[in-house]
């Protein structure tokens, strides 16, 4: 493998990793702060992609479609938290798993009801539809660079919010002691709603920006969910930093193994996870 091809694949791996980070950070945030394992997190990614498809076709503009879809996802997150998740806080993990499996069923059915089961495509917006030549033979799509940049910006935004703002302080406090935060006069329920809706929105945004890169198909959410689990297990449940490192590892390993070890490629990330767990049973950055 020569150096340009290597760099090209590395960029692909990092880009995939950053996208995974966006989804996994939502999963790990919701778990870290609220103690909720949301199996329907992948469905939110799917919802984002399908909403983007729908609104790109009705409004004709990817930017407008992305904003509308993200807002709908945020509202959907609030709705789900207020009506269903709120009943799970004092329950065990098993009930959370079941209820969110129920949600997966509902979202899969709605998707097939509203949009059918054929693969759909979203075109890359014209203002991002170009490629940067790396060598004479290889060029890198601008859209992928844009997605990477967006993921990095959102990541930095999350880091600053959690570490530098009053809201972030409350989130960190809620993570370590819910009852104490409540006693200090903070409306923890509103905080939880916000965190859950943010988690949903992060997954949906990943779905929205993925829509032009992948085909929008049923079951896309479940595939991503499992990859996110691997990311979160590697990084340590509840740790955003862990999600970032884990996502990049998974993205790079997955990209390179599909070139170098095609027979084993879909298993490689699980092998990576098993190795990490043998060394650190609670993940790399567990609290």
């Amino acid at each position, binding site marked *: 493998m020569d150096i340009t091809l290597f760099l090209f694949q590395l960029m692909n791996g990092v880009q995939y990793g950053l996208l995974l980070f966006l989804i996994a950070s939502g999963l790990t945030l919701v*778990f870290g702060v609220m103690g909720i*394992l949301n199996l329907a997190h992948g469905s939110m990614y799917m919802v984002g992609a399908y909403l983007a498809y729908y609104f790109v076709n009705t409004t004709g503009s990817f930017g407008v479609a992305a904003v509308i879809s993200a807002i709908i996802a945020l509202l959907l997150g609030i709705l789900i938290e207020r009506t*269903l998740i709120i*009943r799970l806080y004092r329950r065990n*993990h*098993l*009930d959370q*798993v*079941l*209820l969110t*499996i*129920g*949600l*997966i*069923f*509902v*979202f*899969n*059915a*709605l998707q*097939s*009801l509203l949009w059918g089961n054929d693969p759909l495509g979203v075109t890359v917006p014209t203002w991002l539809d170009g490629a940067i030549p790396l060598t004479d033979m290889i060029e890198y799509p601008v859209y992928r660079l844009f997605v990477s940049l967006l993921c990095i910006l959102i990541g930095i935004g999350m880091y600053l919010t959690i570490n530098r703002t009053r809201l972030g302080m409350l989130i960190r406090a809620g993570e370590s002691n819910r009852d104490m935060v409540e006693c200090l006069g903070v409306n923890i329920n509103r905080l939880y709603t916000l965190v859950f809706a943010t988690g949903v929105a992060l997954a949906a945004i990943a779905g929205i920006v993925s829509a032009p890169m992948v085909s929008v198909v049923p079951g896309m959410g*479940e595939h991503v969910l*499992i990859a996110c*689990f*691997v990311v*979160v*297990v590697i990084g340590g*449940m509840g740790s955003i930093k862990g999600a970032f490192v884990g996502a990049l590892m998974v993205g790079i390993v997955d990209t390179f193994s599909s070139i170098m070890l095609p*027979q084993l*490629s*879909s*298993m490689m990330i*699980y*092998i990576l*996870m*098993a190795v990490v*767990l*043998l060394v650190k*049973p*609670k993940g790399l950055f567990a609290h």
Partner: protein
Amino acid sequence: MFTNRAEKLFVWVFFPLALLMPLLLEQNTFYVNKLATILILSIFVMSLDYLVGRCGLVTLGHALFYGLGGYLFVMLTPEYEAVNFWVYTFYVLAIASLIALVVGFIVLRTSGIYMIMITLALAQMCFYFFSDSTDFGGNDGVFIYIKPETDVFGLSLFDLDNPVHFYYLCLLSLFNVLLFFKLVMRSKFGRIVDAVQENPERTTALGYNVFHFRLASYVIASALGAYAGYLFALQYGFVNPSMLSWQTSGTALVMSILGGMGTLYGAILGTFVYEGLHYGFEHLTENWMLPMGVLIILMVLAFRHGLAGYLESLVEKRK
């Protein structure tokens, strides 16, 4: 043996009724086959129920062993030669137990939410292994052309190709598995398993190695899960990767909760009711997942002790 009144009632109603079913259906092979599949699933769900409900080990990867049961048989058996059913039952159980020992050693190092995710990821890993492999037919799976013979010392007891015979094999297996689990729970081993779930620290303080009891339970439940997968492979004459998918694990969990977690006989109730609803919804609408999903959500929110719990409250009230 069956101490609880509701359980006794269920066993006395279900098994005689199930014995009569093939006669009532008058050789309608579609329904006999369908019921046999549900009996097989009940075995699978019961093994999961033991693990989750009795040992407190929540796994989302139990389908790993269901699929392995089928694939192990395919791997072991020569393609154009009939093998012996009993010998291969032993092989499948033995190898599945060995694999469960290794897998259990890894996954039981973790607990709670971590165990849920690791079991899921390991099962997915196997799912991709079989769905990508060219040796095992990839996504299409593998056909089993010749079913095993069931001779013991030259005496053929039943014919696996005969749906009614196969139905009774499944029913007998289910009864034996239920009996086996009841015996296990009554034994000293079972008492300690209960203690481990109740309070692992105190059980450790009493001098028992909690990990060993968990591992033994994991191996037992996994081997029986593999047996169910093996029966499924024999019934339809093929295996495919969807047996290993996380949906298989997930629906089995739903069935076990629906029946009443940890009650063992509830697994049968849950499986029959879930499959009945599935069959009904599927006939009503193409999007059967919508009513099913709503039902699962309502069940978690409102129906916390499952059908077995409901049955128990009915029986107790009458007393």
